């Protein structure tokens, strides 16, 4: 006869297994990559492992979309999804892939720079697994909302303290999975360091003139609605900020700190010839002051607690009942990229990058992201 405590233990195990099965199904579904629809401007789709074979077959390998113009000119690399919980960068990069055309020069786009980070959410952040946009034809496109860091299933365990390889700088252990603390990367390092190394190899191999890392920051963070530039990129960044101001898009310009290591704008600028800049837009869904965390917060950017914090003077950006919609943040990134490309031509005619088809700030704010996305291909097509 089964003893009573054995029966209760069996019941608890059964409930735990059922919960594990439900959660496992959700976690597995999260790993399926989104389908992007390359537009007519895409001339080639390559993988990051083409520049660093050490990534081949690993969860760190990721698509590199190349949009090459008919005329030679300057080159720009756009990194989206360095932090997959900062959706404006990912969606802006996806729109470049689907809509942009290049007449002169070459545009390289990596929408999911940290592909592993897209396969999970940060524990205790209560984040949604994805968010959707309605398209004019009535269909929807869904994008993954991921984590700031590489999936621990792919890189584990974290050390207690992360020591940045080339500088020896100490950071808390979980930063060991943060791509934007891993540059310039290491050939034989962790998965995150190898992804950073792959991006560095791409820049060196293709002779990329300008590198843009797309990010978002919480409204209470001092560097928000901002461009951070390596000292060599300052003249180009200044022209870009001026051009944005003329369009009515406020953007602050921050120098890349020399004592904060591992970041793209510092290390790529130091280790390669590229002019490295980073954009930050304002994302309430990643902040510590936010209220209910769901897909609506990600897409609409409205939050009652940020409204209260704004009234208390605790924020670094204006925040009203309208919130900061994702469409507006994506528009800000795209307008900055277009202006940066324009400024490249002003700096040097040989290094010009002529872009077209990139949705403008006003039109994307008005019509929404869905208006500029292609319908997803039918399953099996």
């Amino acid at each position, binding site marked *: 006869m089964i003893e009573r405590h054995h029966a209760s233990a069996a019941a608890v195990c059964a409930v735990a297994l059922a919960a594990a099965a439900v959660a496992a199904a959700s976690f597995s579904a999260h790993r399926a990559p989104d389908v992007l629809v390359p537009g007519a401007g895409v001339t080639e789709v390559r993988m990051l492992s083409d520049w660093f074979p050490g990534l081949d077959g690993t969860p760190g390998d990721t698509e590199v979309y190349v949009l090459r113009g008919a005329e030679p000119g300057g080159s720009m690399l756009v990194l989206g999804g360095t932090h997959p919980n900062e959706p404006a960068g990912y969606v802006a990069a996806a729109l470049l892939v689907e809509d942009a055309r290049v007449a002169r020069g070459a545009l390289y786009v990596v929408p999911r720079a940290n592909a592993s980070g897209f396969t999970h959410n940060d524990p*205790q952040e*209560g984040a949604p697994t994805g968010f959707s946009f309605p398209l004019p034809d009535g269909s929807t496109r869904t994008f993954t909302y991921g984590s700031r860091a590489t999936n621990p299933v792919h890189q584990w365990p974290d050390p*207690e303290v992360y020591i940045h390889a080339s500088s020896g700088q100490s950071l*808390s252990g979980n930063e060991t999975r943060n791509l934007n603390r891993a540059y310039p990367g290491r050939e034989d390092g962790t998965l995150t360091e190898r992804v950073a190394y792959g991006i560095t190899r791409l820049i060196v191999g293709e002779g990329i003139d300008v590198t843009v890392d797309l990010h978002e920051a919480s409204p209470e963070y*001092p560097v928000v609605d901002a461009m951070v530039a390596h000292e060599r990129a300052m003249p180009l960044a200044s022209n870009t900020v001026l051009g944005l101001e003329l369009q009515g898009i406020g953007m602050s310009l921050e120098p890349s700190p020399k004592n*904060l290591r591992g970041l793209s704008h510092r290390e790529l600028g130091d280790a390669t010839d590229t002019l490295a800049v980073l954009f930050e837009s304002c994302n309430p869904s990643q902040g510590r002051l*936010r209220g*209910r*965390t*769901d897909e609506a917060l990600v897409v609409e950017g409205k939050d009652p607690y940020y409204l209260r914090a704004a009234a208390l003077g605790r924020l670094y950006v204006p925040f009203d009942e309208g919130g900061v919609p994702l469409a507006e943040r994506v528009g800000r990134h795209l307008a900055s990229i277009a202006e940066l490309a324009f400024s490249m031509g002003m700096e040097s005619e040989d290094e010009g990058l002529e872009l077209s088809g990139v949705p403008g700030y006003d039109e994307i704010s008005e019509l929404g992201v869905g208006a500029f996305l292609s319908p997803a291909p039918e399953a099996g097509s």
Partner: protein
Amino acid sequence: MSHESLLFLLMLGAFAAGSFALRLPVSLSMMLASVAAMLASGNGLGVRHLVEGTFGYVDTMLVIATAMVFMRAVQESGALDAITGIVIRRFGRRPAALLPMLMLVAMFPGMITGSSSASVLTAGAVVAPALMLLGLPRETAGAFIAIAGILGMVAPPVNIPAMIIGGGIDMPFVGFGAPLALLTFPLAIAFSWALGAGKARPVDPAAAGTGPGEELYRRYGPRLFLPVLLVVALMVLGKAAPSAFGLGLPVTFLIGAAAACLAGRRFNALAAAKAAIGDALPVLGILAGVGMFIQTMTLTGVRGFVVVGALSVPPALLFAAIALTMPLFGAVSSFGAASVLGVPFLLALLGRDQVIAASALSLVAALGDFMPPTALSAMFAAQVVGVERYSLVLRKLLVPSLVVVLWALAFIGFSTSIRGFL
């Protein structure tokens, strides 16, 4: 009342009902509170979220479980009795010198790992018998090693809450050594004397009953201490040469436990490991429950309600908000308090010396390890000194905690002057 405030009350009510009316373990009460808020907020059972929340503590659980196995192995091998015997014979007649020494020894693992639990469960367990032989009651000895745990966690060179707070505003962990040393070492020495005052007395080794421990030492010699020394060496090497020795704490503790099986008195390793995991299970369960609780708070907006509430106080009361909310939020996790409240508070303290302010905030956040229901540092300290109810240890920690808060706030208030001094 806002929806989030009602949800917060529901979570607290469900937790209280689970703990007191249904007499459930703390871990299950936290799960009950999480499920109640999930249902009330329209998230269904939120199974994926509940499981995901627990993942935040997987590494901590491994550290605690393996540290418990290591300590049990060291205890069974006879090393603790032997160390106590030797310490009392050498220094037992000079408690005023011995107490600060024991405090610094108890802090050491926390200083190099950033974990108060590692400190309490390793060096804390080593010094506890000596403290009790000096005359400290069990509860006071527990408070002694618990406070050593959090001071060790904050003291340089490794302070994870400060790294988390700095990381939130892109401030590198550079220049923290001197402020953290000034924050912690004077307190450590003062507390060692204060907790021993009126209780610690010179001990005659012959009358202290340390004979069996010394007999073990005579039989096995210094090799008895090799497991402890090996673990300390691996911790230090892990920091000095991480590429070669960065094994991580769980593997380090398991190596130490294996060494303890061979170093001294023979014992049944499997039975010792099972007993250690049995002792650790309630705490591991609490961590899982806390993970669910935080995930639910964040998902439903309760976290925002708490954080913005803390920041809503007038500037004059900002210090009071720091003193109250950070240790209270530490009830769910001191690292969580550093991240969720430490970063916004540091931003609210712009204009002061940021390194000193972040250092002081990390000290206040660390007090969360005394806050029930998790109270990791106090709970493990009670376990180490053999006190059944950890609330008895907590009582002894009330005044030291108050002193710690006032000391940290003074550092924030006078951060600019202190910078000049440094």
